[in-house]
Every structure is written in structure tokens, then in C-alpha cells.
């Protein structure tokens, strides 16, 4: 079996250019790997027939960019024309969109090949991908463990080298946290960098699509391809074109980095805190100034997140009423029956829980007590970050408080999932860019991730730091991948 998909993007590109390989070779290899690792349950829907067709069409085309012909996996909450998009929900189990999300158009314009739609938490609500109607994906580093979520399937696809690239979405850490659990690079760009048109909304003011890749360079390349103002999304921002790889070879000497004390407090596992301290020392050796600082309001962000995200979600998911598309209870007696049964049967427990809590939080006086107040404190978080970025280039810390834990653990504790995301959520609250890069392993050989937070629109600077760390650490990041699939421990 070929191993082209283990090569770097530039190497693949060279081989495509001199016709040593064709896009079809890559596509077939990708499907082989998916087939051999079926038990990982990374994908909900494969796009095999169309992907092969696309690859064949590309054979005659000019290799016009580095991402040409590269297989990519798309999270299943991003709509793809003629390709089933389920949001991992029974509600949309048979939903075949009639249009492409703006990012999907951009992916196609760069001639990447969509391999399939990846598993996730239902409507992106969760941080373990266990709320998926299609059962949870497994962590390639240890099949008993969660892949994280909600972009768990995308993380698994990249981590297990099924596809070099994947798109995820991040509302409260849903790109960065599974990236951390599976040892890959995941970027949540600045809010507004990437069009949300065609992303099935969870919490509109927080949702952002971003790249999930094997390494920092690939990540920046994929971000290059998907950013830009979109007339269909009023919250997308108009920024001059930039190459996010442009600072990668530059020295990081003189950079100023802050580590909030909260990020290395007792809420985080000791070995992870130690890893962050190790990274800090490495950076200091590189001539970087690292300071431990106090950043107020970080501890409030989970509560705010629950109020804002669930409030918005309760409204965003109202459209799934069984009338125009999606699951529709067919034996209804009247309108109320149609609403009730379609939603009762179409949505899973976590989604229903969030809709109920969100509706409650926006009801009557509660809107003032909770939602309006949350928006005010959200401003305070923004100000708190702004103060920090006035003195520092970036903020770092751990991405997660623990490494990936066992599937099925704490399933009956709905709060746990939120607390898992305590380190990543503040970034969504402020709309800042945040990324995960792998920086080592735990004693039980599970990946540990570093969280890098940049100031608005300073993704290029983050890639500069990330790529330097990647270069110093030289981690071996391929899980126990073997031909014939990943074997259980």
C-alpha cells in the first residue's frame, strides 16, 4: 500500500507536478485508510463516487497550487451540495443540501478533494463527540478514549492520517480541544475571518470554521485558502489578503508571551502544567520573554458561554420544526403534535437539554438577569484580553485540563463537558484567534496540546511561534498506525 499521504504537502505537490502520482492515487489511498480504520468511526458519510470523479477530472488540470488534489475531510455541520449533511443528528439524517457553504466553494476552487463528512457531537453540542447520533469516534492514540469534540471526527481523520486536511468548527473549543486530544494542529481563526455561510449554526456569535491539520505549515496553507469577506455573511470581515505562512522562518527572539496564572492553576492536571512550564523554558532559551500574569474574568467564561451559546442555540435550532426539511413525525394529529414529536424524536438528549436551558435563560425577566448581564461581562473579558495584548504578543497555556479520557466516562454529568473546555472558551467569548499544537505526551502516551492565543487577526504571528516550537520539539505524531488498522492496546 502506498504511503503518499504521509508525505508533506510540498512533497506531494512535487510528485503531482511531475506526474509521479495523480490525485486519484491520493484519493484511493485515503479511502483505503478510512476502510482499514473503520472502527475509528471518523466519518458519517463518505463522498467516494464523487471524489473519484473529481480526482479523475483533475488529472488533466494544471497543478496550480499547493493544495491541489489534496484529500480533505469536512465536518458534518458544513453544508455540501448533493452530499448528505447530518450535523450528526437524527433530525438531519437524510438531509442532502442543495447548496455549498462558502468555505466548500473555496475548497473546490483550490481543487482540494472532499473525501467525506466527519463525525461530531450532535449539532456540535458536546466536547467528546459522544452525542453523535452515529456513535462516537475513537481516539487513534487509544481506542478506548474519546477523540474530543465537537470536531472529533475531523481530528481523528487527520490524526490517523486518513486525510492530511480537515475543516472543523469551534464554538467553545471544538477545534482546539479535539486537536489537543489527538495530537494535531487546529486553529480557530479570529471571529469573522472565515465565512459562516453554510455552517449550520449552533451559537452564531461564537461559531467559527477553522483548519485541522497534521502540522503548522499545512494549517496556515489551509487557512490561506478559506479566509475572506463573504457577501453572504455580514459578520465576515474584509481584510487584505495575506499569507499566513509568511513569518514561519523568522526568529521568535524578542517576542513577549504571557501565561495567565489561571491556566496553570490546580484546575489543570499536573503533568500538563509541567509541560507548559517546559515549553516556557524552551521559549526563554529562544530569547522569548515569558511572564506569568493575572487575567481577570477567565474563570467566568464557562458560565457566560452556557448562557450565550445555549440562548443562541435555542433560537438557531427553532427552524427544525419538521415542516420544510429534516425529520418529520409522520403520524401527527395536529400542528403542536408535529412540532413536539418531530423535535422530541429528531433531537438527542444533549441538544434538547441545551434548547431547554437556552429557552429558559431568554425567557421573560431571565433575559435581563442572565443574557444581558452575560453580554456585559463578555465585554469585560474582551477588555481584559486587550489589556494583556497591549503588553504581550501572545498568550499561551494548556489547551485542555486533562488528556483524552475514556469513552463513556462522566456521561451522566452534563457539566463536566463544559468544564473540560474552561481553557478554550474565553477565546470564543472575545472572538480572538486560538490554536492548538501538540507539545508532548502524557505518561500514558496521550498527546498534550499547547494553546496559543493571539490578538485579533494575528494568526500569522501565532503560526510563527507554533512552527518554531514544532521545529524544536520534533515530536513523532503519528499514532500507532499500522497497515491493517490501529490495534487496540
Amino acid at each position, binding site marked *: 500500500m502506498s504511503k503518499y499521504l504521509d508525505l508533506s504537502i510540498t512533497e506531494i505537490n512535487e510528485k503531482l507536478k511531475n506526474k509521479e502520482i495523480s490525485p486519484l492515487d491520493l484519493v484511493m489511498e485515503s479511502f483505503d485508510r478510512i476502510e482499514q480504520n473503520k472502527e475509528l468511526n471518523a466519518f458519517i458519510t463518505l463522498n467516494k463516487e464523487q471524489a473519484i470523479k473529481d480526482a479523475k477530472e483533475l488529472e488533466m488540470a494544471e497543478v496550480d497550487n499547493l493544495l491541489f488534489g489534496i484529500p480533505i475531510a469536512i465536518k458534518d455541520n458544513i453544508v455540501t451540495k448533493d452530499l448528505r*449533511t447530518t450535523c450528526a443528528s437524527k433530525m438531519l439524517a437524510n438531509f442532502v443540501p442543495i*447548496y455549498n457553504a462558502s468555505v466548500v466553494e473555496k475548497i473546490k476552487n483550490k481543487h482540494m478533494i472532499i473525501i467525506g463528512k466527519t463525525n461530531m457531537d450532535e449539532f456540535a453540542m458536546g466536547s467528546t463527540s459522544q452525542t453523535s447520533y452515529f456513535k462516537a469516534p475513537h481516539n487513534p492514540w487509544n481506542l478506548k478514549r474519546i477523540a474530543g469534540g465537537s470536531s472529533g471526527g475531523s481530528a481523528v481523520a487527520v490524526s490517523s492520517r486518513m486525510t492530511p486536511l480537515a475543516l472543523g468548527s469551534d464554538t467553545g473549543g471544538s477545534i482546539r480541544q479535539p486537536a489537543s486530544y489527538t495530537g494535531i494542529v487546529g486553529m480557530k481563526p479570529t471571529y469573522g475571518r472565515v465565512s459562516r*455561510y453554510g455552517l449550520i449554526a449552533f451559537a*452564531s456569535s461564537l461559531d467559527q470554521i477553522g483548519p485541522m491539520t497534521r502540522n503548522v505549515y499545512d494549517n496556515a496553507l489551509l487557512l490561506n485558502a478559506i479566509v475572506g469577506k463573504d457577501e453572504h455573511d455580514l*459578520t465576515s470581515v474584509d481584510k487584505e489578503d495575506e499569507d499566513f505562512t509568511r513569518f514561519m522562518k523568522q526568529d521568535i527572539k524578542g517576542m513577549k508571551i504571557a501565561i495567565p496564572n489561571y491556566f496553570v492553576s490546580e484546575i489543570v492536571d499536573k503533568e500538563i502544567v509541567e509541560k507548559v512550564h517546559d515549553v516556557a523554558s524552551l521559549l526563554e532559551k529562544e530569547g522569548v520573554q515569558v511572564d506569568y500574569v493575572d487575567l481577570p474574568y477567565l474563570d467566568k467564561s464557562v458560565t457566560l458561554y452556557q448562557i450565550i451559546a445555549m440562548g443562541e442555540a435555542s433560537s438557531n435550532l427553532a427552524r427544525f420544526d419538521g415542516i420544510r426539511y429534516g425529520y418529520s413525525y409522520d403520524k401527527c394529529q395536529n400542528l403542536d403534535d408535529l412540532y413536539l414529536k418531530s423535535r422530541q424524536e429528531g433531537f438527542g438528549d444533549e441538544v434538547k437539554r441545551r434548547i431547554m436551558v437556552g429557552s429558559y435563560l431568554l425567557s421573560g425577566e431571565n433575559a435581563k438577569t442572565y443574557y444581558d448581564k452575560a453580554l456585559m461581562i463578555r465585554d469585560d473579558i474582551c477588555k481584559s484580553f486587550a489589556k494583556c495584548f497591549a503588553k504581550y504578543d501572545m498568550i499561551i497555556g494548556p489547551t485542555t485540563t486533562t488528556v483524552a479520557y475514556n469513552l463513556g466516562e462522566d456521561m451522566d454529568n452534563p457539566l463536566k463537558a463544559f468544564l473540560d473546555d474552561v481553557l478554550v472558551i474565553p477565546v470564543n467569548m472575545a472572538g480572538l484567534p486560538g490554536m492548538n499544537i501538540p507539545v508532548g505526551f502524557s505518561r500514558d502516551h496521550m498527546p498534550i496540546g499547547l494553546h496559543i492565543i493571539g490578538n485579533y487577526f494575528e494568526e500569522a504571528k501565532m503560526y510563527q511561534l507554533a512552527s518554531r516550537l514544532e521545529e524544536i520539539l520534533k515530536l513523532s505524531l503519528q499514532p500507532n498506525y499500522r497497515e491493517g488498522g490501529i490495534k487496540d492496546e
Partner: protein
Amino acid sequence: MSDYKKTVGIEVHCELKTNTKMFSSAANAYGDEANSNITLLDLAYPGTLPTVNYGAVMLALRAALALNCEINEDMFFDRKNYFYPDLPKGYQITQARTPIGINGYVEIGEDENSKKIRIHDIHIEEDTAKSVHQTDHSYLDFNRAGVPLIEIVTEPDMTSSDEAMLYLEKLRQLLLYADVSDCKMEEGSMRCDVNVSISKTEQLGTRTEIKNISSIRNVGIAIDKEATRQEELLNQGIVIQEETRRFDDVSGTTILMRVKEIGNDYRYFPEPDIPKLHLSKEFIRDTKDNMPMLPDDRIEAYKKRNISDINIKKLLQNKPLSDYINLFLDEDIDFVVLSNLLLGDISAYLNRTMKDLTDTNLSKTRCLELLTSLKEGKITNKNIKDILIDYLETTKDVDTLLKEKGIENINDTELLIKIIKNIIENNPESVEAYHNGHDRAIKYLMGQIMKETKGAANPAVANKLLQEELKKV
């Protein structure tokens, strides 16, 4: 006469005259085939996002200015959440917290009887789809879903059905003249909900809401009927419930739709998909500068040009004619003659043929030609009737038409003098009356001249000659 005082507040929904919908690029058109003017957004297709129709924002701003409102320069949209099949997203995008206009007023009545009806606010929102119910099925037409609306909410300032009707007529006229809506109640592009309460004291009574009344006249009837119904209840010692009723055209009464649930909970929150909108000073100024001439300004302009009150009233009821006459405001012409002409023979022609003025050949230049011919006595008011249809339907000038019709006016002074002398001789009583200062006599004598000449005498010339001849007697 009842000693209860009525209190009325009105909410008007008005569809804006835009090419496309409020938040999507689908056409905003009435009467098209069902579900033909829709985009993915209008069906609330997953993943779609709203965009803002700035043309609609401009029209709403224009309406707010026409209603003398203060403008919210920084505004955002809110979501109003509720489930209904005609509401595809499960929420309506509206402006609950930052309406585009607040604290305005509409002035009704005239002079000493005038009264200001305060406008609480005017806000932008989107229309719902249309449900059509049949015995075992309901059908949805999404053409109307997302059509831009403004909702205009008054304070409870009206105290009678007459005031309510005056307010609605004035409001309709203002919105029509500001060119923001076609305000057709029969097509639903203007819809009113009326809140009515009665009380013997200063403290307002419990109000009921009457929905979707199809004409201004019916608003008046509905208010009176509802007030009577409430009074009868109160007289029987029954407490009035807060409820929503609808007006039934056939029986002319209000019928209960639903009792208001306590604290109807729409779970409002700011629409996160649309960033805050800042209306710049320039945008507001430009909108003000480009405001079409509003009714009050037109009245003033017409009064200045000596158009009669009755003609002014008629002109304002006919916006195309009023717009037409405005083309001449800078011209030195006799507006009395023009307004008479437009409201008389020309209106009669337009009504008979179901045409608009724009369907005729009465360009401004040709109208001026007609007016000049009249002024110079080339044609008379009688002749006009003979040539008007051809003048409106063809491009032939006055001279050609007069020739074609074989119309010759008696401009021959000698012939006229002869006729006049004859008439003076035969009407000594009138001549005497004239000399005694009775103006009516001259009218009678002119009438005789016209009768004698079968209307072919140039009235101006004839009048002048008659006066001269009378002085000689």
C-alpha cells in the same frame, strides 16, 4: 351618550416598496405564483445567513422622518422567537430595542381642531409567509416571507373612531407621499391592529386588540362596536379580559380569537448574524434631502398658487395628478385653470378609459401648449372638450386639431360687436341692472353672447367688448 371615554392606540404594519426582500435577494412582489419568489434564506434553509437590504433601511428612515421621529443612529436587530408554520426560522428578525424612529407624531384635523397623535416608535421587521387553510391541509406560500415591513406604533392618543380614521388616512397619505409603500389595505400591504379600551376615569381600562381590519372605514366601525361591547359588559359588572379579537366584515362585529396568555414570551435577544448598523449623518441628510414632497407642503404650495380648497383636497387624494401638477410649480401659469382641467375633463377621461396620465400624450410641454392656447383665446373651454381626447391620444398640436375638427372661434371683432349690440338692445333690463352695479347682469349677458355664437366666441375678447359696449349705452 355614554359617559365612558374611549381610548384607542393603533399599530400599523406597512410593506416597504423595495425590489427585494429585507434580508434576502428574492423579489418583493405581490400576486406572483406561490413560492416563486424565494431563496434558501426565505425557507430558513440550514446554514443560511441574512443580509441587509439598505434600500429598505432608507425607506424606513424616510418614513420615520415623515412621521417626525427622532432617529436611532446606532441600531441593531433583535430576534423575536415563537413557533408558527408561517415563520420559517422560528424567529422573526425585528427591532425591539433600537427601533429606527422614536417619539414622532402625526398631526390630524385642521387649524384649531388639529391634534398630534404621538408615534411611540417605528421599527423595521420582516413579514411572515402566508398560510392558506383548507379542510384537511394547510398550504404555505413563502413569497411574502421576509418582505420588508415597518411597524408604526402610536401612543393611546385617540379618543374616538373618527380620530382613528383621520389618523389612518393621514398616515396612509404620508406613507404614500413619502413613497415608502403602496399602502393597499386590500392587498395587505397596509394592515392595522387596533387597541381599544374604555374608562370613566383617567385610569385606562383593560384593552382588547382587534386584528387585521381590512379598511379604514371598518376600523371606525370596529372601534365603535368594540367600545359598545365593552360598555355592555361593564354595565353587567363583567370584567373585561385582555384578548385578541378580529373584525368580521360580514356581521360588522368583533369576534374573539384568543385570550392573551399572561406574559407572552418572545425571548427577544440581539440578532447575532447582523452587526450593528450605524446610520451616518450624511445618509440621514441625503434621505431628508431626497424626501418626496409631503402632503402638508403640497397644500401650502397649492394655496400659494390660488388653487381652491376643494381642488387641493381632490388633488391630494390623487397622487398621480398631484405629482403631475408639481411638474409645473416653477412655471408662470394659471394653476386654477390647470387644476380645473386636470380634475375635470382630464380626470373624467382617465376614469372612463381606466388610464393613468402617463398613458397619455399629455407631456409637460404639450400641457403648456394647451394652457397657452386657452390663455390666448385660441381655444375656449368648450372647444377643449372637442379636441381633448385627440390631444391626449395623439401628438397633434392644438392648431392642427382645431383645423381637423373644423372649429373656428369667432375672433372677428366686428362680427362680435354686431352680436353684442343686438343683445344689448334686446335686454334693456339687464343693461339697467348692470349700470345699477349688479355684477350678475354681465354674466347673463355673456351667457347670451355664448348662446348666440354657440360657444364659439372667445370669452375673453367677448367680455372685453361687452364691457366697452355697455359703457357706451
